[in-house]
């Protein structure tokens, strides 16, 4: 307790000394997220300065060990640091798949050498990572993947295709599941490889979604040579690494602990409804819409309570476990319902794909509504989440 108080004082004074004035307060110039990577350009010198100092201190990822670029803080200390940052309205904008997914998996499964090689570059934002799991014929049945890696000397030669590799076209490295034993049972012939996107034979091509351009890519490997040293954990044991990582992904997709809330400056559903009905105050004249908005808000209240309950349980030392599937399932569907309602409320404005005369928000929310259909599919379909819940939580037989 008194140690923690000491740390709070230290953190406070470090922040006072190191956080540029422009990077704190209500009008701070920090972006919500910096994804890092070789292609990242930071225009504001103050932001660059703040990033450099955070990196030097290890406080982009305060909980990781110091030797890997983290801050070596305990969970309590990390919390104190977050509180102190929040008090002066600043944050560490670095966020990436490296931080949220690959890093934790490396900490658990990588060799000392691999950790020292890769973790600091994640912590500093030097390398931006993307994920190569799904394939065209391996969607829900991820473990049936066919992208193959054949050993040839000190290298694997990788040939095949990945899809839904988000940000592959702007990332530096990719972490990949590949088949190293085609004859083994499907879960037992998979290895986990790290591949430099600049290697010869790698091509990434963006996927256009029904909502338009997307961060997702198809990524092709045509005889790509990958050093065996880039394999994480044992050969043919990549599925264990993948499972750990998938859990982090679901938690992230569900907006679980750890993710900065994205600011939303769009009109609320109620505001959209009031505009569309020309009813700026008082009871909404369309009672069906009124009930739908209330239902959505009540659902959100219930979801928030559920999330809080799990977080409270976590604070009390109980883990989340497969309940992550529940959050992914429910949040994605709630988001869909809400996007759908918003779109309906937009009415004719929401029908316009291109054109001049329509509500300024409509074009953006239309694309968000279309994109919301992906939320119950990517990162594990709702059906897969239900399989996980019923197996792992409810113990139903298979």
């Amino acid at each position: 307790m008194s140690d923690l108080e000491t740390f709070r004082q230290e953190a406070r004074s470090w922040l006072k000394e190191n956080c540029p004035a422009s990077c704190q307060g209500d009008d701070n110039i920090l972006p919500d997220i910096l994804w890092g990577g070789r292609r990242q350009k930071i225009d504001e010198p103050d932001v660059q300065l703040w990033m450099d100092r955070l990196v030097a201190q290890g406080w982009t990822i305060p909980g990781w060990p110091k030797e890997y670029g983290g801050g070596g803080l305990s969970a309590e200390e990390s919390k104190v640091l977050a509180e102190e940052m929040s008090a002066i309205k600043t944050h560490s904008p670095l966020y990436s798949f490296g931080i949220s997914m690959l890093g934790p998996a490396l900490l658990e499964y990588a060799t000392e050498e691999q950790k020292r090689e890769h973790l600091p570059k994640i912590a500093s934002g030097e390398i931006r990572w993307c994920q190569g799991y799904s394939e065209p014929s391996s969607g829900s049945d991820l473990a049936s993947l066919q992208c193959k890696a054949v050993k040839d000397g000190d290298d694997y030669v990788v040939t095949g295709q990945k899809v839904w590799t988000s940000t592959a076209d702007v990332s530096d490295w990719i972490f990949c599941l590949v088949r190293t034993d085609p004859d083994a049972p499907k879960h037992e012939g998979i290895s986990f490889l790290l591949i430099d996107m600049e290697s010869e034979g790698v091509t990434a091509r963006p996927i256009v979604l029904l909502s338009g351009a997307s961060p997702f890519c198809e990524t092709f490997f045509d005889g790509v040579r990958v050093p065996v040293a880039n394999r994480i954990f044992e050969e043919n044991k990549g599925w264990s690494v993948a499972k750990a990582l998938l859990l982090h992904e679901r938690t992230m997709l569900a907006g679980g602990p750890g993710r900065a809330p994205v600011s939303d400056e769009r009109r609320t559903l109620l505001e959209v409804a009031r505009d569309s009905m020309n009813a700026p105050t008082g009871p909404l004249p369309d009672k069906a819409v009124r009930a739908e908005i209330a239902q959505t808000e009540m659902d959100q209240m219930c979801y928030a309570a559920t999330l809080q309950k799990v977080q409270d349980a976590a604070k009390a030392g109980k883990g989340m476990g497969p309940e992550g599937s529940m959050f992914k399932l429910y949040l994605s569907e709630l988001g869909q319902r809400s996007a759908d309602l918003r779109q309906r409320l937009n009415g004719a404005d929401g029908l316009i794909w291109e054109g001049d005369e329509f509500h300024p928000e409509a074009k953006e929310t239309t694309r968000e509504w279309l994109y919301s259909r992906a939320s119950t599919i990517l990162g594990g379909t709702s059906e897969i989440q239900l399989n996980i819940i019923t197996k792992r939580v409810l113990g139903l037989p298979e």
Partner: protein
Amino acid sequence: MTLILSEEQELLKDSAKSFVDDQWQLNQLRANRASPKTGTIDTGLWQQMVELGWAAIPFPEEFGGLGLGYAELGIVMEESGRKLLISPLLSSVVLSGSTIELAGNNDQKAEHLPKICDGSGLYAMAYQETSRHEPENVHAALTKSEGGYQLNGHKQLVINGGSANHLVVVCRSSGDAGDRDGLSLVLVDSKAAGVSIANNLLLDSTPSANITFRDVTISPEDILGEIGNAAEVLDEVYARAAIALSADMLGGIQSAFDMTLEYLKVREQFGAKIGTFQGLKHRAGRWFCEVELSRAIVLKALRSIDSGSGDLARVSSACKARCTATYQLSGKEGIQMHGGIGVTDEHDIGLYFKRARVTEILLGDASFHTDQFATASNY
């Protein structure tokens, strides 16, 4: 406020669970149908619950209470709801007790709350007059007479009305049915001249009563709170009651789910456990999510009473609407997944289905609460 149970609360939960399991059988609900007109509750059982302190949980110590909160009362309600136990917890403790605590003066509290806490008095609340929960649709008239007042009117769905010796009655001292102004609260002795009580038995074997008041004399000491100005107290009372009832519902929801999940694991058809059929399995998964969401909002709502949240109207409506929907789902899916045996009187799942309907209508259905939520949110 945290949404997990403290150690003390866990202990209370365990003891409540043991009590209910030991002292109450679901078959009692079937037995009650054999003597449908009695419309009374099992006072022996209630006395045991009182001795465990359950009736005293939410009241201040100065009035014989334990000085705990709805977080604790909710635990007891959930456990009794788990086995559909019939008791005056809602009618005497939550509805009547809250009204007296919130509207009564010190003398009234000192006279009545200890009786509620020690079980020497059984209280029931008479508020509803039509088939729908419409808090302001009150016709029962409180009129001035020499030396006091007279009460005339008719109430229905007075839970445990036939067993109560005291009635808390919502009436109107001015204005018209539907007005928020002019609502008043009075205490009436159930044996008073002019009070006639017709017992009936609800679907779930809960005793209920229709009560007629004819020229019942009300002394000024039995007016609870400011005359004509009861609306705000009633808002709070109904919100608390909706939340406490939701805790009871949560227990039933969990039971129906657990019972069905178990059946999915043991019943075989087509050479396999029926829980292996994805059609049923995925529905069970969705049902589970609804149960979890219901549990979380009940925990939050109970604590919102204790913390004096200014948002209680919205929270209580979100809570009751959600639990209503989940209990309906639980009754329906429970029966459907049990198949033929599920529609027999012999199987317990049907009792939960019936209880789901009673608790839905009591204190407003999902549609009522959706409307109330929107109103409380100013739209």
